[in-house]
């Protein structure tokens, strides 16, 4: 019922937006109503392939992410990512590991006008992101800045559990239907921290799902996914 209502609203907006072409659209429809192109509506689920690949290539990183979206209307999709990441951050004076799970929820807007029965997307999106993670300071070397007294590396791990982070994410990407109902997608995201927990006398340098936290509390991410649409209905 909701879906119908939202669809109806959207149709209304669409007709308004292209009001000068209204007449021709109507004409076309009435002329050749024997051919109607439909596209599938349903739940699309997939996997971010970049994370397992980086897990193999990059030392100190493991990650896994499931992506999903659900088509609401011609252009709007509810989109979500859920995953788990572990990253060891090696800096000049500190070595720390962040490990945890995350959930992102939001929407995508498909700005691409498909030809005929094609089903591709160039989309813009927004997400709310949440992560629950543990942080371990593995070792550190104090920055003494003077060599008169010997310096030493301190290897006593310090663990802080149940840290949280909340952020907003802006996404831009594309999805191409390569085989029937199978999509390959690529997206880039820019993220802004809303709230983040830091361990005592330290800083969270990496958040699962967010990636590296820059000093301005922003971050970047990308995603390379392959997904399959479970078609519920064709419209």
């Amino acid at each position, binding site marked *: 019922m909701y879906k119908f209502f939202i669809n109806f609203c959207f149709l209304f907006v669409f007709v308004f937006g292209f009001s000068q072409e209204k007449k021709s659209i109507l004409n076309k429809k009435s002329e050749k109503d024997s051919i109607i192109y439909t596209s599938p509506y349903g739940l699309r689920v997939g996997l971010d392939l970049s994370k397992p690949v980086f897990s193999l290539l990059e030392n100190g990183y493991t990650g896994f992410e499931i992506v999903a979206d659900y088509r609401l209307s011609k252009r709007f999709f509810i989109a979500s990512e859920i995953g788990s990441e572990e990253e060891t951050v090696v800096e*000049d004076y500190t070595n720390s590991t962040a490990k945890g799970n995350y959930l992102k929820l939001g929407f995508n807007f498909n700005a691409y006008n498909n030809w005929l029965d094609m089903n591709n997307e160039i989309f813009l999106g927004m997400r709310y992101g949440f992560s629950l993670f543990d942080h371990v300071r593995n070792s*550190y070397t104090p920055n003494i800045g*003077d060599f008169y007294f010997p310096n030493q590396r301190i290897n006593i791990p310090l663990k802080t559990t149940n840290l949280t982070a909340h952020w907003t994410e802006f996404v831009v990407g594309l999805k191409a239907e390569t085989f029937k109902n199978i999509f390959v997608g690529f997206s880039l995201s820019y993220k802004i921290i809303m709230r983040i927990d830091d361990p005592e006398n330290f800083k969270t340098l990496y958040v699962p799902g967010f990636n590296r936290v820059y000093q301005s509390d*922003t971050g970047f991410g990308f995603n390379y996914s392959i997904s399959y649409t479970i078609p519920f209905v064709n419209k």
Partner: protein
Amino acid sequence: MLIGFASCEKDDICIFNPLTPKLVIGFYDQDNPETLKTVESLSIWVEGKERIYENASLSSIELPLNSFDTQTVYQLSKGTSIISTLTINYTPQEDYVSRSCGYRFIYNDLTLGSDASWISALNPTNLTVINSQTEHVQIFH
């Protein structure tokens, strides 16, 4: 845009060196405690280590403290033969600065002692060493 760029730079390169502060000592006239008085041919070292200052004429010095101990003992000589021992006690505290700079040390609860040689009196003016810009100790001679 500019702020974003600047903060990224800050994030990658530690620009706050030296990060861990040194103990700043000023030498004052024992007869006229308000005025600085230069120490002639001053040498400073820790027993068994090389000299930090050698045969210098200075009214203000900066000394590093041993961060992995609660005490640093310096030998201060004026001229060739008169040696005074300066004992500095403190509580080191790790202080996180940033991704690129890591941790520095600051020193709390500063207390000082010296054997009476050419040093007539000590006056700690700052009990916490958090930067090298302010003077922490006055030495009268």
